């Protein structure tokens, strides 16, 4: 479903992602772990077609992101880091705009919007202007646009960042539920989320995979603690 082969992304001489290969199948939720600057967001941006790869390839459901970007993008729902939104629109206006871009019309559009409003608990803010939303609602509005077209693949960049504990719980539950039928990759540096939502996790550091496996196997490798493994394998920005 997501097939990444020998992916390299360089900015100038610096490799943000260095020869990364992995694949995520349908029904899998891959947790993408790593310290700040490890290359998580860059990898996701290449997967979603926002950044072109320097080398290597990415395929979404067998479609090459480089060769057929529009077709690949139709398969993906993407929540970018920091959940960017058009501040001058209302939540409803924004979702309508996204639905139009995604090719929805008439009743199908209304149904798709109603569905994501319910899934992301946006009922109370539908008519509200986006610039007046709290961080939690902003995140959920952006998540809603990612779910509009019921995509086969979801790429979520720190989906729980800035949410309160209740909202975090809801989003994790949502990811687990959606993960049964979809292919999901989400990044986080909150290790407890791996246990809560992932079927598989990957730790990357300096653009390379340093550990991969089920949450249990990773915990065993870290002598019972994911945090211990994370600290052992990744470079601290402070130390660097």
């Amino acid at each position: 479903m997501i097939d990444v082969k020998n992916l390299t992304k360089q900015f100038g001489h610096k490799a943000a992602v260095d020869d990364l290969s992995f694949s995520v199948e349908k029904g899998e939720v891959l947790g993408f772990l790593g310290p700040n600057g490890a290359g998580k967001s860059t990898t996701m941006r290449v997967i979603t077609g926002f950044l072109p790869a320097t080398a290597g390839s990415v395929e979404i459901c067998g479609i090459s992101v480089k060769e057929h970007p529009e077709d690949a993008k139709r398969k993906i729902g993407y929540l970018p880091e920091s959940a960017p939104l058009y501040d001058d629109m209302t939540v409803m206006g924004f979702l309508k705009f996204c639905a139009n871009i995604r090719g929805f019309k008439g009743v199908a559009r209304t149904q798709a919007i109603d569905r994501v409003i319910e899934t992301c608990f946006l009922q109370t803010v539908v008519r509200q202007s986006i610039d007046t939303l709290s961080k939690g609602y902003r995140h959920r509005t952006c998540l809603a646009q990612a779910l509009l077209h019921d995509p086969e693949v979801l790429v979520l960049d720190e989906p729980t960042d800035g949410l309160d504990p209740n909202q975090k719980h809801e989003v994790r539950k949502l990811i687990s539920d959606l993960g049964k039928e979809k292919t999901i990759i989400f990044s986080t540096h909150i290790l407890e989320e791996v246990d809560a939502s992932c079927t598989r996790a990957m730790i990357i550091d300096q653009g390379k995979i340093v550990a991969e496996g089920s949450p249990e196997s990773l915990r065993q490798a870290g002598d019972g603690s994911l945090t211990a493994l994370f600290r052992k394998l990744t470079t601290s920005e402070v130390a660097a």
Partner: protein
Amino acid sequence: MKNIWSIFCREVSSFFTSPLAYVLIFIFLVAVNALTFLWPGRELIESEQAALKDYFFFYHPWVLAFYGPLLAMRTLSDEHRQGTIELISTMPVRTIELVFGKFLGGFTVLFVSLLFTLSVVITVSILGNPDPGPLFAGYLGSLLVGGTFIAVTIAVSALTRSQVICVAVSIPICLLLCLIGFDPVQNFFADSGVNVLAAFGELLASISVMPGFTDFSKGLVDIRYLFYFLSVIALCLFITNTVLQSKRA
């Protein structure tokens, strides 16, 4: 086509939901009317002429050199500043559709703004009998000049996330596109008596928006000038498209 329409609609509605839009249109109308009716020695009413070429359209390129950039400054700068460029670029939209939709949005707002200046035409029509040919051609010229300035600003806005920098760069470019074809500047080169300078003057005139606009405001719709305006707009949008794509590389 559908994507262009969606982006166009968002652009227009986003413009009219912002209070800044109404302030800009108001300032534009005040500027056009004040210049037309109050400029010392060129007051339209006292001229007792119904021809708008020297009293109304004469100022349009200069006002539009400020208005076009102010209108279009947010176009892509805002997308970069808010990070929404990442959102829209990961939807099934081609970059050129995004750029063209945004241009059409700005162009429509310009069209609406120019409609409001019809008050001047109505005034003149009550007092005299203006020739409709130059009137239509003059408005077409204003639209094309304004469209060119919007396209220039969009190209600049692709390069920066700051609206202030975008305006500070775009207005001088637009003013320069007027100035190099302005009669006094052209006369300076033509009267210099130096062949190289005269040739340079002609080169400048061919880049400027002024010769085309002057012809339009006289009622002469020259297909070559029409082609000039459309190709400058197309070039700017093409540059914008290239900048947006290469920025991510």
